[in-house]
């Protein structure tokens, strides 16, 4: 490949210059990053082809957390599958619960009372804040700013306390049920949320001051991992990654569900589509979530939290223990599951990582015939080769952190 020169150069500097002129391309290295690696968020394996320090090609390899959720769903009733939805995007379990509940309710063709919708909005927005906090914390830690991680985890602990108050578990809440919620919001929750909404913007401002105009952070994140708009749409990327590339699309605005049309909030959109834009989109989304939460808690309607259809939800315990009809309903509901009509349905919601969708094919009965989970991280990771080509090895870490994927939902 290299052209041979006739004369021999004595000087080593001249020889080096000759080598550069001839464009000697060295051997490319194939390096394996992961699946056990501190900076791949979860068990992702990335095979990199490096030319020195520059990334020439990237092949992500997934499947190291494939637990067989979709096959398990075919053997469980709709209600029994709720704990599995927690573990999909395990950073924001409440959001997955909400999405799944709406998907099955769409299949059944039923509606839930307004109080339930508002509480589900509160859960979804708390999950969004929690997920973005971890995304930004991990991003900052990978780039080198360790303090941000501790600040964001402190705030996440407050969200965990609230999740524990409302559902009983810090994490993996399994809070929603088909047709309602597992229990109503306890009275201690509202003051906790109000205190959080007063303290949390202070932390966002702190993180903002530490990172957004930080010289080192800007140099590490600006211009890194650019995802052009057309390619993002072609790949099916959704969520902050898509909005960072300049596409103004948010399911909460374009197909409002769960009474999102009652709330006033903005949808931040980036311009260039680099890691810095995605970071800014997430920061601003957290502020907008605070806005939504404030409105939700101020205008929370009263009323029942579960839909009145007794065939879908479990009846009251006193009625079950004293009356025959409710006992039979309870028994059939628990053993056979909700009786869904045959048909197929797709419902998607704006999860913190993107568009989480459930495609349920039902042949009637209590278990789905096929439950496909359209996971945002699965689709967003396809954009990795586009984003990473031409950058340096250390930018890989930035790009992986800025996509903010979760292997639990990517591999299901």
């Amino acid at each position, binding site marked *: 490949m290299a052209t041979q020169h006739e004369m021999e150069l004595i000087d080593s500097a001249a020889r080096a210059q000759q080598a550069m002129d001839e464009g000697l391309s060295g051997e490319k290295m194939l390096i*394996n990053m992961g*699946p056990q690696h501190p900076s791949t968020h979860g068990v992702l*394996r990335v095979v990199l082809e490096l030319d020195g320090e520059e990334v020439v090609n990237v092949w992500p*390899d*997934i*499947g190291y957390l*494939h637990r*067989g959720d*979709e*096959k*398990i769903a075919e*053997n469980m009733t709709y209600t029994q599958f709720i704990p599995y939805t927690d573990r999909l995007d395990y950073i924001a379990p409440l959001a997955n619960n909400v999405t799944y509940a709406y998907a099955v309710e*769409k*299949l059944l*063709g039923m509606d839930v009372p307004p109080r339930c919708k508002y509480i589900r909005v509160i859960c979804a927005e708390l999950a969004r804040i929690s997920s973005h906090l971890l995304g930004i914390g991990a991003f900052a830690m990978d780039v080198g700013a360790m303090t941000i991680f501790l600040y964001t985890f402190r705030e996440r602990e407050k969200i965990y306390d609230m999740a524990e108050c409302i559902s009983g578990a810090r994490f993996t809440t399994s809070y929603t049920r088909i047709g309602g919620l597992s229990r109503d919001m306890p009275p201690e929750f509202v003051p906790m949320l109000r205190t959080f909404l007063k303290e949390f913007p202070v932390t966002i401002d702190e993180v903002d001051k530490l990172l957004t105009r930080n010289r080192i952070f800007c140099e590490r994140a600006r211009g890194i991992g650019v995802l052009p708009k057309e*390619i993002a*749409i*072609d*790949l*099916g*990327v959704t969520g902050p990654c898509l909005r960072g590339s300049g*596409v103004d*699309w948010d399911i909460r605005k*374009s*197909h409002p569900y769960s009474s999102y049309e009652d709330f006033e909030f903005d949808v931040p959109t980036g311009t260039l589509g680099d890691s810095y834009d995605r970071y800014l989109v997430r920061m601003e989304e957290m502020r907008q979530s605070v806005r939504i939460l404030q409105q939700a808690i101020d205008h929370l309607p009263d009323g029942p939290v579960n839909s009145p259809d007794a065939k879908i939800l479990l009846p009251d315990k006193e009625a079950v223990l004293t009356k025959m009809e409710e006992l039979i309903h309870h028994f059939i509901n628990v053993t056979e599951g909700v009786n869904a009509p045959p*048909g*197929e*349905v*797709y419902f*998607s919601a704006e999860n913190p990582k993107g*568009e989480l*969708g459930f*495609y349920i*094919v039902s042949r009637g009965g209590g278990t789905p*015939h*096929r439950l*496909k989970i*359209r996971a945002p991280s*699965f*689709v967003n*990771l*396809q954009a990795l080769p586009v984003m990473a080509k031409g950058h340096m090895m250390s930018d890989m870490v930035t790009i992986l952190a800025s996509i903010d994927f979760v292997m639990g939902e990517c*591999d*299901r």
Partner: protein
Amino acid sequence: MTPQAAIDRLKVRFGDAISAPVEFRGETTITVSSEKIAAICQLLKKECEFDMLTDLSGVDNYGEDPRYEVSYLLYSLANRCHLRLKVRVSEDDLIVDSVTGVWQGANWHEREAFDMFGIRFRGHPNLKRILMWEGYPHHPLRKDFPLAGIPAELPETAVDADTVRVAPMLGGPFVANSGTRSSIRREPRQYDTMAEQQDKLDNPTKKESV
């Protein structure tokens, strides 16, 4: 353009290949013939502005013929509407045209359909397994595959002595023994020649000269 208008345009072009639309819970589904799927998707993307492929999934209808189904969920950002296309594939001829030429995002979805059901996609750039490991012999989401699984050969680890050039230390993985007295036996050094290392492995109790 609404889904109905898109279906009308498809009927004009493809006629019999498009079935009557089924509406359920506000969603429109049409079943199309598997030979024309790539052309249909091309038309939908170019003329009907369905620029995003939201989902592509396989479904196994065990006991029916044709047994498998591939379901494409398209979305139009400009018109904000969904459209679902279904293609039925029979077990004997388990191959469908790939739509990666139309939407790049179909790449991994089709790999997953291949991995889980065994449906092959003609023209796919890299049709390998994605969730299970290479060399796994079964297709897990088929209805005749049990949930608890069938025992199969475990995967090779990604980095192996056969796949990459071995580092200068012979053998491995190395476990450092905290108990041995000599540090050279405890962890072999890079300057040990291959012969010395092989010798140490063969005679572990021989006293070293050091």
